[in-house]
């Protein structure tokens, strides 16, 4: 187990290294006005070149990359250019991170608590009313772009329950709707897979045997079917934090929550290159880390998984 974890961790680190390098190289192709802020139009070409050179952007690419890694290891992501000029990016992110983390975790909790029972319920009443309702919900969430239903939720639910339209740190009521909206996507995801795995498991021989032994339906469901169906789900647990990323980009900027997702939209619209780069790197690292945790978690939940055997793409 330990050996597997270390091997898997090393693999993730290599992937992280490759991705950071690729992202860094791609970022050199970014629109150059993103390095100047408001003065861009006032400067002539020579002045622009001078500024870019002073930022080290005219050095050969391998020296730039080396400097970038040197800064990265000392925990320096550079400074913001336009969003909050001259403020270190780490400081900006430290302000934003608690909000994103809070909403991400709450949304994940809600989606687990709602999605898994929903999926189990759908599997038990296959082709009956609950199954059909649940399928309708899953189809809707998967097919309709999140932007559309998020907008309508914000529009009408705040109207009906007289909630504040925007997020207010001092008003806990205004925290509820963003968290629930954010959870909708992964709830559908959990319900869909839970249903599929449960239906697969119910038809297996060991369930028939358990039934023949005279076990109660509830015991079979909880102790046998659920345990087996949950294993593939365990892998999604950390990844569902990622699912909230896409959600959080919308939700945070729709409700003006001062988090990282909203920040990304802000800095893209204002073309702050250094912040875009830092945020893309952070989100990618979260992605890699999430998949790593998922693999470890799955190995813990299912002792049958052969850790040493190298698997191809899943």
């Amino acid at each position, binding site marked *: 187990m330990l050996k597997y974890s270390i091997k898997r961790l090393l693999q993730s680190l290599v992937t992280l290294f490759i991705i950071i390098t690729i992202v860094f190289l791609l970022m050199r192709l970014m629109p150059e006005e993103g390095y100047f802020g408001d003065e861009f139009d006032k400067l002539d070409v020579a002045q622009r070149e001078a500024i870019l050179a002073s930022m080290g952007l005219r050095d050969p690419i391998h020296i730039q990359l080396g400097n970038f890694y040197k800064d990265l290891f000392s925990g320096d992501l550079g400074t913001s250019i336009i969003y909050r000029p001259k403020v270190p990016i780490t400081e900006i992110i430290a302000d934003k991170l608690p909000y994103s983390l809070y909403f991400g975790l709450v949304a994940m909790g809600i989606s687990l608590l709602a999605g898994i029972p929903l999926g189990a319920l759908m599997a038990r009443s296959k082709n009956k009313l609950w199954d059909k309702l649940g399928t309708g919900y899953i189809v809707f969430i998967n097919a309709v772009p999140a932007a559309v239903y998020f907008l309508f939720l914000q529009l009408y639910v705040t109207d009906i329950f007289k909630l504040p339209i925007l997020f207010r740190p001092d008003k806990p009521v205004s925290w509820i709707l963003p968290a629930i909206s954010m959870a909708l996507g992964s709830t559908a995801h959990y319900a869909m897979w839970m249903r599929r795995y449960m239906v697969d498991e119910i038809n297996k021989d060991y369930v028939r045997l358990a039934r023949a032994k005279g076990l109660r339906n509830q015991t079979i469901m909880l102790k046998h079917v659920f345990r087996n169906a949950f294993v593939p789900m365990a892998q999604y647990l950390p990844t569902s934090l990622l699912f909230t990323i896409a959600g959080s980009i919308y939700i945070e900027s729709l409700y003006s929550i001062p988090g990282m997702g909203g920040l990304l939209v802000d800095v*893209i619209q204002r073309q702050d290159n250094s912040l875009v780069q830092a945020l893309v790197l952070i989100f990618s690292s979260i992605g890699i880390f999430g998949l790593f945790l998922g693999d470890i978690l799955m190995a813990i939940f299912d002792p049958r998984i052969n850790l040493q055997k190298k698997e191809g793409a899943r």
Partner: protein
Amino acid sequence: MGSKAISKLSDGISQDLFEFAGYDEEEAKRAGYSNYSYWRSTWQVFIKNRVALVLLILMTTVLVFTLIQPYLPNQKLPTKIYIDESTGMQLSNHKPDSEFWFGTNSIGQDIWARIWSGTRTSLLIGLAVGFFEALVGITVGAMWGYIRPLDRPITEVYNVINNVPKTIILILLTYIMRPGLGTMIFAMCMTGWINMARFVRNLIIIIRDREYNLASKCLGTPTRRIITKNLLPYLVSVIMLRMALAIPLAIGYEVFLTYIGLGLPVSIPSLGNLINEGRLLMMAPSLRYQLIFPALVLSIITISFYVMGNVFSDAADPRNHV
């Protein structure tokens, strides 16, 4: 028969054994022959699902309508700004009526015309992305599955790309390449083909060494026939499903990119642009029709393609054929 003396063997064989037999359906059924056709069976299973059939007819109508709409009489131009004759100002935020069926937007453009023009743009993006995804995905996936030395390198590349959230790749590419129709289609293809390739690869690895394929090979079936008759029917359902789902996904990504400011220029109407325009006005309840109409059209289109894709993929699976 035995006692009759014949001089030549061929004299004893009755000539009518060499006549062509006629085809009799009843007889054929008794002998176990079936004139099974893959596509006809797929179609029959598909139309058994009434919902899918209705949606198919609906979507065909929408597709035809978006193409012929500009040529119909009494249609307005999607980008023309209409002037209110009594005031001489722009006819802004005009309520839906018999003249402007879906009303006008804040600068006096006809929303009905803009929605159909936008649907055209969005469907174009969706179909282009679906097509290119399939093209690249099938090619890479087939190489990945068939050519054994390529398995490791492509798997590593897959692991790297798959580790990064799709939305982040999309944002990064469109940000670097500057917004536009080509950029958008390119970026979506870059993120989409990887899933298609993985599905194709997994399926090929599973079925390429199955006994029935070995048997076919031993009986001397040419490779081309093995691919088209033995492998393709299995792949078709997955490929069609991915292509059908690529359309709602691409439309959704278009809305997303527009929302974060990396979408098409406002001069090109698209469903994303229309929803974004409507969003800016949503705080005024009387103007919400500008958000609701495009959102409704968009939802109907995405749900239809999603449902049709799933039903078709079930129908295309030979195991579900009778």
